[in-house]
């Protein structure tokens, strides 16, 4: 049995959770009550959506892989809630949380999982390949680590165009060992690219615990020092902390055009994917401990109860509404049609979809400006 992963988590995770040291950070102080409830609602929606997905998967309506984000919600909610209109994101295959956070609707997300034409990628991408460029969401990528250079590239384009924006490029604790990730680190630091590499460290890459996969000077983020890049460690169970530390990195990107590596500690409750029997690499007590004592949604709920922002009735109605929305999304997906056979060969080349020669030689369609 692998060693428990909490060993590599920062101090803040080891002591029993208490009031957040980051509640007064300017980015958090600026939050209204409504903002705080909204963050709660967004996390609840992610969780209920995914729990509904389990059932749909078991019914055989979702094929292939399904990687759940349950347990990691505070990362998507915290990091994405501090972004502005010119800030972008890109992530790996564990992408449902980010999608719902940026405003993709449950219907098209659920329909995509069922391979329906009403899905966000018309049934062509699946669970690992969500996209919504209109919401600055550049996917959903199935190849581990492949999105890191893309994130740097998006940020490069922002800078090139003179926009004050940045790109968050998310990856897992296993992805950090891909060559492409290190090459992206170097380029970002060398060329002053406003990208933020967010490592969602949930302790495991499939069945491999972090200490069996990575050599590092103390943390994965600290590898940044080799490239002269800033870095920070974040307690991913504390929404205030995630927001505060992300905001600092965003500021660095916007104002100095410098990259950052943020390593956010978190935990996934379910197996790597639905096909993972989850038996060989961690023990049940560890999962139980995280579920019961460190659950980011429960902790946020408690914070807001203590602050007097939430009450029991609101909590119940938010959760019921989220469950209801997920059920409706499942029904929507059930009723939606599959793509047509002729759709298989669409969306491959620009000319064929647009019946004419390419006119985008100046890059105008990329941002629609």
């Amino acid at each position, binding site marked *: 049995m692998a060693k428990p992963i909490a060993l590599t988590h920062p101090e803040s995770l080891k002591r029993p959770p208490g009031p957040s040291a980051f509640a007064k950070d300017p980015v958090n102080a600026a939050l209204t009550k409504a903002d705080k409830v909204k963050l709660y609602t967004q996390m609840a929606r992610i969780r209920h959506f995914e*729990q*509904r997905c*389990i*059932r749909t*998967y*078991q*019914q*055989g*309506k979702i*094929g*292939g*892989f399904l990687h759940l984000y349950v347990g990691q919600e505070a990362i998507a909610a915290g990091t994405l809630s501090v972004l502005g209109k010119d800030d972008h994101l890109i992530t790996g295959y564990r992408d449902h949380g980010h999608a719902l956070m940026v405003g993709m609707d449950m219907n098209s997300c659920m329909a995509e999982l069922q391979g329906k034409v009403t899905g966000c990628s018309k049934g062509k991408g699946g669970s690992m390949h969500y996209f919504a460029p209109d919401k600055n969401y550049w996917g959903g990528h199935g190849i581990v680590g492949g999105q890191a250079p893309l994130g740097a590239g998006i940020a490069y384009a922002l800078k090139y165009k003179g926009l004050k924006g940045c790109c968050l490029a998310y990856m897992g604790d296993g992805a950090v060992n891909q060559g492409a990730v290190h090459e992206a680190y170097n380029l970002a630091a060398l060329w002053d690219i406003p990208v933020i590499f967010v490592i969602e460290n949930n302790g495991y890459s499939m069945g491999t615990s972090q200490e069996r996969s990575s050599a590092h000077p103390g943390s994965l983020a600290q590898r940044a020092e080799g490239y002269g890049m800033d870095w920070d460690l974040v307690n991913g169970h504390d929404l205030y902390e995630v927001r505060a530390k992300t905001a600092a990195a965003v500021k660095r990107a916007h104002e100095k055009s410098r990259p950052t590596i943020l390593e956010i500690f978190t935990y996934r409750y379910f197996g790597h994917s*639905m*096909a993972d*029997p*989850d*038996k060989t690499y961690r023990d049940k007590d560890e999962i139980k401990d995280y579920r019961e004592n460190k659950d980011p949604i429960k902790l946020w709920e408690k914070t807001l109860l203590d602050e007097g922002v939430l009450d029991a009735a609101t909590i119940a109605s938010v959760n019921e509404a989220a469950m209801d929305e997920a059920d409706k999304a499942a029904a929507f997906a*059930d009723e939606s*049609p*599959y*793509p*047509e*056979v*002729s759709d298989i*060969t669409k969306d*491959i*080349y620009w000319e*064929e979809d647009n019946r004419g020669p390419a006119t985008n030689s100046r890059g105008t369609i990329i941002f629609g400006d």
Partner: protein
Amino acid sequence: MADIIDMPKLSDTMTVGTLVKWNVKEGDTLAFGDILCEVETDKATMEVQNTIPGVLLKTYAAAGAQLPVGAPIAAIGKKGEAAPDPAAKKAPAAKAEAPAKAEKAKPAAGVPAIPESTGVSCAPQALASGDRVAASPYAKRMAAKAGVNVAALSGTGPGGRVVANDVLAAASSTPAAPAGPVNVAVTPPADGKGIQPDADVAVSGMRQTIARRLLESKVTVPHFYLETEVDAAPLLALRETLNKRLAEAAGKDAKDALKLSVNDFILKASAEALRRVPAVNASWAGTSIRTHGAVHLAFGVALEDGLVTPVVRDAQAKSLREVALDAKALIAKARSKKLTPAEMSGSTFTVTNLGMYGVTGFFGIINVPNAAILSVGATVAKPVVDAQGRIVVGQRMVIGLSGDHRVVDGANGAQFLQALKQLLEEPALMML
């Protein structure tokens, strides 16, 4: 309303699961995430988590059951609610639905029109332009050999291309067959006295296949023919004795007893003769001769609309009784049209018998890729000269062999017939 829990899909490749054990029992109150049961998939034993809070009303499958994904395993509902009848549920939901919708996605023809390659149009080209004759390379080569003028043929291939069959048809100087099964106007004989109407009658797929195969064999395989006459008296005597004993052994079930036919003896003797002259148990394989280790014997069974040739497999290793039983079963299947393709293919030698029609001797067309076919005539009583030089009444049977001269030479063929003759005349040898 209670929800039915199905055998879940637990991995990307799972199609069936074995319910290893239940972790809950009927009446238990279940929360989201409780472990319902353990299921063994193709990859591992996995725990099935509950996704519907409620009371476990019923389990439909016991531990150990192996079930397809989508089969009902349990019902969850409110306390006191009656468990629904799983059969009433409209079949495995996902399964029933997915294909139905998929069907809709397909154009009516079943198999959709598939674009061959992105951006490449694949309109069929006009085959012949100007004076150029459209003919397949193989048809041209065959025509050159057979001295047929390709330009004079009207091709039946796509776009009028002349194909090998057209050349075969021309070479055998039968009028070219109509392109497909067509029914033309039927002209009844003027005075109503003809034996049948003048008509072109559409033929079955079976008849077409027979036509094509036999034509190809007759035209492309260099046939040669050998014949000999066999003294069938010992065989008939042995058959009578054996059948009598078989009936006695069966006692009161005598009418169900195995009855050996002359053909059964001939099949068995052929297998034995092939063992002695294995060169005949072979095929022409283009550039080589393929020898076959096992004897798979095809034999003709006449049906109303044609002829089928079921195959007794590994006849070289079977007793007379086994051969007879196999042949009987195959004949029954042939008559009820239940033969599978596998039961009709893979032969290495064929036996055909028209003795029951009184035909005294004939030569069949080789059943490609066999190297030879044995044709068996009727057993007739006729005067013969016996060993003492006297004229006596003999029981004589004529057997003929058509051989593929590419594979078998006259000498091998003759040796084979000789061996067969000996076995049939001294049938006890077959029992060895």
